[in-house]
């Protein structure tokens, strides 16, 4: 058995936290992917998870003039695991509000889909997180992306060296994919936002629990290949209560009282990073994604609601990622 030097830095368990700062991804090897010239982001204030989230979200979506009429919209929340008191998952009330908003905007079908990375019993996570009750009340179909029918798709970038991935039919058949991450720090990739959220579309039935091949190929590289191949049309990020420290499971809750909407996952993630007090230029996959997937620079992002305000105290990170914190007044962080 040969050891692959390309994966040696990245680490098979997604270890090597330093990989985010040591792996060099200088050469964009993507093809056929166009970056939009400018991106729109809306930072919305939301004091808490309450029933008026739908109203807040609707006012935000109005700023984008999305046309989802007669389209199938798949909402992809971050639903990882359930631990009482830990803010691990995208909140069910936000998902519920998004379902209602897209229905009101004229979507023919709104689905919710997720493939948890560690927990094989998706229904258990749905039940215990409270998501199942909301889905039932709203009569929304949930697709377990770990166990959906699979279709092989060539990767549209070549950071991992994998030529193709098997992907869930529900994702490929949807007209509009909305990434709905929970804003969190991550001990192996620095942050987990709308781009990293795509790990959940990789089917466990083929790649296992966890989706370990993505760790062996490098987390950042895998994020980039996935984002190049699976188009994210819109982002609704849950930053009402975010997570800092030892995320994605064992961090501490950090209220930001914000929802971030965007028509570009790179711009969404760059903005979320700034709200966390981090410099998006220092997050490997956001920086690399800005070369071909979307916009990182504040000059290319139109903030159509609240302005970006970095917190007085940046998010806590595990020591290997302390370097992601923005320097005072650094251009890319503000």
């Amino acid at each position, binding site marked *: *058995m040969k*050891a692959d030097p390309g994966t*040696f830095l990245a*680490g*098979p*368990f997604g*270890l*090597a*936290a330093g990989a985010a700062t040591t792996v060099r991804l200088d050469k964009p090897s993507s093809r056929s992917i166009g970056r939009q010239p400018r991106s729109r982001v809306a930072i919305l204030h939301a004091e808490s998870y309450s029933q008026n989230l739908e109203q807040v979200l609707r006012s935000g979506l109005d700023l984008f003039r999305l046309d989802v009429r007669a389209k199938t919209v798949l909402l992809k929340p971050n639903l990882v*695991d359930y*631990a009482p008191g830990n803010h691990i998952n995208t909140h069910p009330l936000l998902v519920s509000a998004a379902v209602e908003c897209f229905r009101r905007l004229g979507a023919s079908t709104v689905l919710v889909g997720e493939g948890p990375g*560690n*927990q*094989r*019993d998706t*229904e*258990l996570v749905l*039940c215990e997180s409270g998501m199942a009750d909301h889905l039932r009340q709203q009569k929304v179909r949930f697709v*377990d992306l770990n*166990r*959906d*029918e*699979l279709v092989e798709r060539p990767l549209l970038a070549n950071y991992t060296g994998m030529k193709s991935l*098997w992907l869930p*039919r529900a994702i490929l058949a949807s007209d509009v994919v909305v990434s709905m991450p929970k804003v969190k720090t991550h*001990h192996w990739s620095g942050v987990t936002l709308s781009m990293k959220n795509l790990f959940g579309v990789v089917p466990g*039935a*083929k*790649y*296992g*629990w*966890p989706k*370990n*091949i993505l*760790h*062996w190929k490098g987390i950042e590289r895998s994020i980039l290949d996935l984002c190049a191949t699976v188009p994210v049309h819109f982002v609704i990020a849950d930053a009402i209560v975010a997570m800092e420290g*030892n995320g994605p*499971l*064992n961090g501490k809750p950090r209220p930001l009282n914000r929802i971030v909407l965007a028509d570009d996952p790179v711009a969404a993630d760059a903005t979320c990073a700034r709200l966390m007090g981090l410099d998006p230029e220092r997050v490997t996959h956001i920086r690399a994604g800005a070369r071909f997937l979307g916009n990182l620079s504040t000059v290319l992002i139109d903030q159509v609601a609240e302005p970006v305000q970095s917190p007085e105290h940046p998010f806590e990170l*595990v020591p290997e990622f302390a370097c992601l914190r923005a320097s005072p007044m650094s251009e890319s962080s503000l």
Partner: protein
Amino acid sequence: MDDTQRANRLCLAQLVARQLPGGGWPFSFRAAQSSVETTALTLLALPSTFIRERERAIRFLLQIQNPNGNWPSFAGDDKRGSGYTGLVLYALNRSRVEGKPAKRAVDWLLHSRGRESHWLWKWKFRTSDRHVRFDPDKFGWPWMPETASWVVPTAYSLLALRHASGSSQQDLLSFRIRRGVEMLYDRICPGGGWNAGNGFVYGSALSAYPDATAVALLALWGEPPNGLITASLDWLERRAETCLAPWSLAWAILALHGFKRPTQTWINLLSTVVEPAAIEDCATLAMVSLALRCASGRNVFGANS
């Protein structure tokens, strides 16, 4: 007929209705792609009186076995093999399917191992990558080639190899079983039980999962009683009290029953909470059926199977 028997009969009727023309079963009844894990679990669930369905399932599994002896994840998958190979071999073994296909599968399992067992990775885990607490000398089986060992594929492989007969490589067989058992003990969560395979990461203990705990316990059946097994059974009993998801509850029943812990309460609960026709996932349906059969003392993963 009591509630449990009635619920099981409904599960079996659903499974029969959902068998695909090729002989396999999909995960979701909406899908037309046969899943190897679902088919193996359903083969285990169908009583011997379902002759036609069982024969078609066996034929399907034998047809899609890869030339090197392993099984793919689903019909149409690539040929690299999957962590379900042990489960299929176990299901075929219980169905008295032996001969060359079984021998090829055993040979493949004996030589498949988690990538962390390579000397270079061992060195790396001992020197620099130490955020996940585990011993790379204790390895099992991966979900797919060239990745690390994880709990469920290791447990499936152990179940198969413990029942494998006639291997010409008895020393290797014993060695792999021993290493696999050691790997499971090494990856146990601090409070008992197992998750995917990381008990302690970045200074934090991670919680166990009912299904992974159950399958690991079933794979350890026959090992000398010890505190780790007892702690995991205790954890599973406590967890079952609040677990209403059929897949996890079914796995928990099978493990607790296998270790002679009381299960009637959970069986009654399962037979009342499930509506077989409403269960979209066929693998869950098969697991529910397997668990309900414990009421009559039959446990396909236990000593009394």
